[in-house]
């Protein structure tokens, strides 16, 4: 499948490096271009050095090359994606959206990877959403019902770009929605904190789940450990920093009074493809997008094979 990445910033460039590595290993995605808007961008120069097109002509380049593209990864901003999403769809290009624009169905790679393989636009939620929704889902599948879940994401200041900073509400709202829609919580809250410590801290994520009366606590813990393994399949640096714990309340949550809460303390170390390992927030996003792109490519290939038989 021929694809391009739109956005030559940190996320776009990191994804480029991942996709080119995978192409060498005969992966299904054929990355042909990195498309930005700044001719002087470091990412574009790197794209040319790595032997693919590096252009600053922005979304116009994508639309004028629609015949040569099957899929794009959009790593621009929610505003840019919202403005262009319909045009990509009209041009027959599948869009994997790494911004919090939330136009297409949300996909969390470890939870609902195969649910929307025919959608023209797929939303990757947020980095914090990719890190924490799997754990909310892990708690949910071990309980009768999950009245309330919460995530707290702390990222190093250096790894939070201007897009995140100018529009921090998009992050919390989109993430919180994912905790309900995909994680399975009835109520939710998302919090993001920036920490400027030097050397930069690793991305940290904490998940709290309100456990109703009668919950099998051992089953919750077991489910959390199993989910850690599932996410590690595509994000090797994803790990439980401490053992998950069940704390006794009671807690007066927005979903009602619960006797206990589960606390899941996560750390995400990046693979260091473009930015240093502390920027695990970028890594989990690009690794998840790659996994979704490959799943779509596999699905389309199977469809074509079926059609040609």
């Amino acid at each position, binding site marked *: 499948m021929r694809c391009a990445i739109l956005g030559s910033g940190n996320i776009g460039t990191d994804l480029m490096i991942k996709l080119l590595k995978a192409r060498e290993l005969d992966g299904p995605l054929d990355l042909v271009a990195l498309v930005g808007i700044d001719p002087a961008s470091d990412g574009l120069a790197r794209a040319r050095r790595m032997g693919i097109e590096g252009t600053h002509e922005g979304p116009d380049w994508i639309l004028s090359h629609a015949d040569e593209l099957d899929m794009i990864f959009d790593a621009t901003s929610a505003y840019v994606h919202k403005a262009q999403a319909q045009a990509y769809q009209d041009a027959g290009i599948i869009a994997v959206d790494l911004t919090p624009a939330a136009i297409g169905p949300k996909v969390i790679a470890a939870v609902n990877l195969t649910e929307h393989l025919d959608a023209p636009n797929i939303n990757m939620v947020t980095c914090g959403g990719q890190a924490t929704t799997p754990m909310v889902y892990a708690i949910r599948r071990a309980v009768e019902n999950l009245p309330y879940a919460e995530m707290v994401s702390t990222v190093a200041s250096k790894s939070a770009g201007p897009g995140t900073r100018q529009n921090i509400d998009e992050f919390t709202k989109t993430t919180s929605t994912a905790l309900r829609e995909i994680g399975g919580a009835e109520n939710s809250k998302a*919090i993001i*904190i920036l920490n400027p410590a030097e050397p930069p*801290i690793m991305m940290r994520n*904490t998940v709290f789940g309100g456990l109703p009366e009668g919950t099998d606590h051992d089953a919750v813990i077991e489910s959390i450990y199993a989910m850690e393994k599932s996410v590690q399949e595509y994000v090797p640096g994803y790990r439980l920093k*401490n053992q998950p714990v069940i*704390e006794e309340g009671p807690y007066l949550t927005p979903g009602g009074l619960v006797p206990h809460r589960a606390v899941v303390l996560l750390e995400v170390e990046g693979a260091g493809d473009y930015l240093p390992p502390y920027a695990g927030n970028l890594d989990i996003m690009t690794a998840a997008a790659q996994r979704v792109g490959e799943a779509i490519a596999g699905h389309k290939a199977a469809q074509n094979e079926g059609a040609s038989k």
Partner: protein
Amino acid sequence: MTTTAVKADYRLIDSTLRDGSHAISHQYRMDDVIQIVTGLDRAGVPVIEIAHGDGIGGSSFNYGFSAVPEKELIAKACEVTTNAKIACLLLPGIGLADDLREINEMGVKVARIATHCTEADISEQHIKVAKSLGLEAIGFLMMAHMNSPEGLVEEALKMQSYGADTIYIADSAGAMTTEDMKVRVDALVQALEVPLGVHAHNNLAMAVANSIAAYENGAKNLDGTSAGLGAGAGNCPTEILAAVSSKYGIETGVDPLALMDLAEEVVRPIMPRAQVIDRAGLILGYAGVYGSFLLHAERAAERYGVSQADILFELGRRQMVGGQEDMIIDVALELARKHAEAEATGGEA
């Protein structure tokens, strides 16, 4: 523009119903709000801040759930006040711009938009929304001891450029000496076109002295809380600030005796414990740790059988910033594991 009946030399903002919320684990009841707003309003306090301790939207597992939904409390404060303006605090990343629209409808007049002292650019969206609603917008830089005077000026200028009417620095860890305060206030007053304010904590017993020093160096707004009720070892006590200001001949426009009555008769009776500088409170100031961590660390220490002091020191060493209460559990678990490992190997615990 702000005007009060009496010409005051600085504007006093009381945060008993916001910062004080930390000290009572966010358990304010409707009746507390009615009594405290009434008392502050009668004493002539021009601005009263109310919200969850961690700002609007702070009710959560991470910071503690509010006993009464904060928006009901805020609406009541707006209803009860006669002269005082009602203010709310909001931390981008915790509260939303939509919350500002809601509180504006209730009659709130002042929005304080707070960020860590190096992250002012996450306040742009919220300051602009506050201004577009016609609210007074105050940019509030927390943990100001962690940034240099020049660094604070850079961040404050960003907030000013977004439209902030006033800039505050908060000594959230109560970690500043008077000298630390003076150099920061001095640099900011020189660089800013808008007025400066200072929010002090008392972990090093410096809150009143630092507030007076801030005024003498050009700060035009000072924060206090009744009886010092607040995060850590508490805030600058409003009634003491008013009394000391009066002794210095600084006109506050408020009645110190009425504030003393409020502290004694209304606030002290609802305090779960006296606001004193015990070991844990002092460590916050000494190690530069966010004041709101105090009670969370106390609970985690008890739950996991480790020392509260050790937790607080470790949080300081890791340079944790306001809002990272989840890391208290992380640190407590690590300390407990280290103790267990040391015992298993017969080493020193």
